[in-house]
């Protein structure tokens, strides 16, 4: 066993992937329909070494940040999940999480991902980068250049947890994401809370004006699903439909699906 926890994270097999689908839904969709709904994309999530404190992704990334190894861990996570994502049936669009600070600091991150994806047989235009952040990147021009570079090679951009933390109006303007993934804080409970519903509707209008689509994160039950679709959201993700599961469990779930609709073109 490696002496340092960071070494354990970075050693082969230290990180493992789990996958959660993002479904395309209409206003009549219900959680019980999950097996028949088109899947727009699959988010690739990472878990740290089993049985350690960093098995939880929240603790993993907090630990990486405190070790000043965020960029190294982001690369390792992306490589680990792409290795498994290559085996997803139906070649779905795949979503990878990356910290804005990594994009700002690691100028070769896009090239690295392109090389890994290519070596695994995953076309770069199947990849959507989900931008997560706890602090705004200090070097905003580098961050924006990195986003432009990713777009130039055909990747899409999602702004994660819209409405919370640093996924604010400024980030929406600067990232110009293809997808606005609205935070579960606004989704869960929107069915009976007009204020949350108003937030969802406003994000839908904003995303539409900016040429993007909205994903409702954290759909926990049919009530959340109804609230999301009533607000005009047609992409949803959450345990009501399918939790985050290993490749062996997601693969049969993906097979034989109806094709998703074509995505909106990326904003100019």
């Amino acid at each position, binding site marked *: 066993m490696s002496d340092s926890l960071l070494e354990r994270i970075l050693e082969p097999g230290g990180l493992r992937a789990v996958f959660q689908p993002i479904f395309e839904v209409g206003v009549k969709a219900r959680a019980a329909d999950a097996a028949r709904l088109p899947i727009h994309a699959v988010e690739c999530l990472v878990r740290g070494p089993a049985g350690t404190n*960093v098995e939880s992704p929240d603790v*993993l990334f*907090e630990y990486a940040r405190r070790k000043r190894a965020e960029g190294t861990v982001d690369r390792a996570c992306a490589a680990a999940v792409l290795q498994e994502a290559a085996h997803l049936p139906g070649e779905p669009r795949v979503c990878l999480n990356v910290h804005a600070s990594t994009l700002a600091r690691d100028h070769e991150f896009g090239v690295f991902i392109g090389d890994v994806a290519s070596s695994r047989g995953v076309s770069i235009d199947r990849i959507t980068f989900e931008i997560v952040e706890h602090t705004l990147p200090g070097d905003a021009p580098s961050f924006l250049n990195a986003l432009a570079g990713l777009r130039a090679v055909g990747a899409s951009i999602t702004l994660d947890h819209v409405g919370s933390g640093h996924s604010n109006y400024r980030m929406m303007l600067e990232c110009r994401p293809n997808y606005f993934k609205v935070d579960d804080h606004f989704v869960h409970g929107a069915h009976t809370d007009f204020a949350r519903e108003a937030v969802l509707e406003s994000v839908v209008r904003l995303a539409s004006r900016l040429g993007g689509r909205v994903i409702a994160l954290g759909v926990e039950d049919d009530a959340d699903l109804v609230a999301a679709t009533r607000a005009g959201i047609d992409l949803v993700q959450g345990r009501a439909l399918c939790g985050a599961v290993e490749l062996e469990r997601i693969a049969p779930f993906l097979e034989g699906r109806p094709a998703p609709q074509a995505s909106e073109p990326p904003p100019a």
Partner: protein
Amino acid sequence: MTSRLLIVDDEEAILFALREYFTTLGYDVDCAREVEEAEALLSHVQYQVVMADLRLTKSHGAEGLEIIGAVRERCPWARIILLTAYGSAEVEAEARRRGADAFLYKPKPLAELARVIGELAGPVR
């Protein structure tokens, strides 16, 4: 809710023994070997008691003092015990100034540690 205990020590064998003992007593126990690992846990988990070794490296460090600050920032209600085999009156004074509730010299019998934790955290729920 079970009382949650974070133990920080760089010796795997010590962590193993303490985890086993306090789990048997009914505590929900997490263990960390590094300052950064403890800080990451403190950012996401609420603890009733944090027990840390003063020295977490082979060199003459005093990382336990850093952990006191992290606890006071993220779990201000948590009670803190600092353990050391290399203590001094000055270090103890500094630990208490930073917010440690108890400063104990190693080795200490497990039953004595349990008594101190029980006094600080109250009975295990």
